[in-house]
């Protein structure tokens, strides 16, 4: 990890510039810019409807912004604009370098095939053609995200919500991406299940040196995982800073309301 962490330390892995996205009369994302550094976890917090998911989808290259650029620095130091890439290259980058963990595991999993096939899909998309090797990787990754590898051939629908979310994480990490986008990865789970998943995520992010953009409305999750926080309100960034600073000493009036839990988040 030291090689690219050292090289990348002073270069952001992701630079978002003046991103805006409107839905009809709603300005969902309004002129947002930020940098993300290798190994860094950036939390995006804000009340419901503040534009977190829209921003994440635009940053992840899933949805075209109206204006602005998303610049990704690849393994060789080259800068690519995710939204200017030809479709084929963008999709390939998504399989090799990027990951997306969705709030609803049904959106991020292939429900019609087994857990093993879900984990192996990226490998097969990248040209792996040895069944035994693919299966072994799927087995190892299930173990790594603490899903019993005996569930390898079960369809996702037979797994619990927490296991489905772990499966989604394994499915993304199997190709060793460098940058992962997560939208409420612990949303909709029991508190105890949430806590274990958070521990797991924290461990994996550290071990793999992942850069992460994490959307959450749960400030507890943000405090546990994020190095830095960005507070959004009505599509705009109202405050950015180190997580502890923002949570313990919020500057913007809106952040103060958010942190004091006066706002429904």
């Amino acid at each position: 990890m030291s090689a690219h962490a050292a090289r990348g330390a002073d270069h952001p892995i992701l630079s978002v510039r003046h991103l805006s996205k409107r839905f009809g009369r709603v300005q969902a994302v309004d002129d947002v810019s930020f940098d993300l550094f290798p190994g860094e976890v950036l939390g995006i917090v804000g009340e419901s409807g503040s534009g977190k998911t829209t921003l994440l989808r635009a940053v992840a290259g899933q949805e075209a912004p109206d204006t602005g650029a998303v610049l990704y620095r690849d393994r060789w130091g080259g800068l690519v604009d995710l939204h200017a890439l030809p479709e084929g290259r963008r999709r390939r980058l998504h399989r090799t370098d990027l990951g997306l963990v969705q709030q609803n595991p049904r959106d991020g999993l292939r429900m019609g095939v087994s857990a093993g096939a879900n984990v192996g899909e990226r490998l097969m998309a990248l040209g792996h053609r040895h069944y035994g090797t693919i299966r072994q990787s799927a087995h190892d990754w299930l173990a790594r995200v603490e899903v019993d590898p005996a569930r390898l051939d079960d369809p996702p629908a037979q797994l619990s919500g927490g296991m489905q979310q772990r499966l989604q994480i394994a499915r993304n990490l199997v190709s060793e991406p460098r940058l992962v986008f997560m939208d409420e990865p612990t949303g909709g789970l029991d508190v105890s299940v949430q806590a274990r998943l958070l521990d797991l995520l924290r461990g994996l992010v550290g071990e793999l040196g992942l850069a992460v953009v994490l959307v959450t409305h749960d400030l507890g999750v943000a405090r546990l995982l994020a190095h830095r926080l960005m507070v959004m309100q009505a599509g705009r960034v109202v405050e950015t800073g180190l997580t502890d600073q923002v949570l313990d000493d919020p500057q913007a009036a809106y952040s103060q309301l958010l942190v004091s839990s006066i706002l429904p988040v």
Partner: protein
Amino acid sequence: MSAHADSLAAAQTVEGYNFAYLDEQTKRMIRRSLLKAVAIPGYQVPFASREMPLPYGWGTGGIQVTASILGACDTLKVIDQGADDTTNAVNIRAFFARTAGVATTTRTEEASVIQTRHRIPETPLTDQQILVYQVPIPEPLRWLEPRERETRMLHALGEYGLMQVSLYEDIAQHGRIAKTYNYPVQVSGGYIMAPSPIPKFDNPKLHRNPALQLFGAGREKRIYAVPPYTDVRSLDFDDYPFDVEHWDTACALCGATDSYLDEIVTDDAGGRRYVCSDSDYCDRRRQAGDTGAAR
């Protein structure tokens, strides 16, 4: 129906129809699609499929392709499940005998155009022949990805991981790749193609076949092609390589051990025997003196 009887019927072409039923403008349109299909092996070319005086399940895609390439001097063979004498085969053959007045045959080596459903003849084809397949579902990715726009994108980008996922799933669930017909292939290292519901036994015959192979899907309005001598590879895994069906018995009628065998139930007591699915191949062998009983 014998070859002789077919030729007699062919002499009396029906009045009032254009040659081979389809109007010339439609045939030209289909030929343009065919040329495009040949130029881009395995690529599904959309075409404006016409209503035919036969129901879709009867192979209207194949019939339109045959109608568009047939000339007065052609000799047509039609097979269904390997046989020339099934209702579907007899009807299509009679249709072209009446509307085009072309000669028909049951002998593979005599035919210049062979329309088929479910089989590739056992008798090796030559570069003087065209094989026309009737295709019900042309899209090999359909059950994996129902969205048409997305499957087109996957083809355009050559993103075929999904197809491999389905093979993975087969092995995980059944211990082997369970697909026995319409087994997906990759054409010339490019497009992945549904070979139509032929048994995987026939897949190796797709590979570098000297004949031109044309595929017509009427209901789905797609035409695709494998030009002569084109590489066609059946998908598999390195440690689960593609293989074909084997029988530990020979054809009960002609003794062939190299042909695709159909299981025939012979009596109420559950008796069964295996015979060639390719009736012409079986007949030739028996006329040449081979018998199953002799072995």
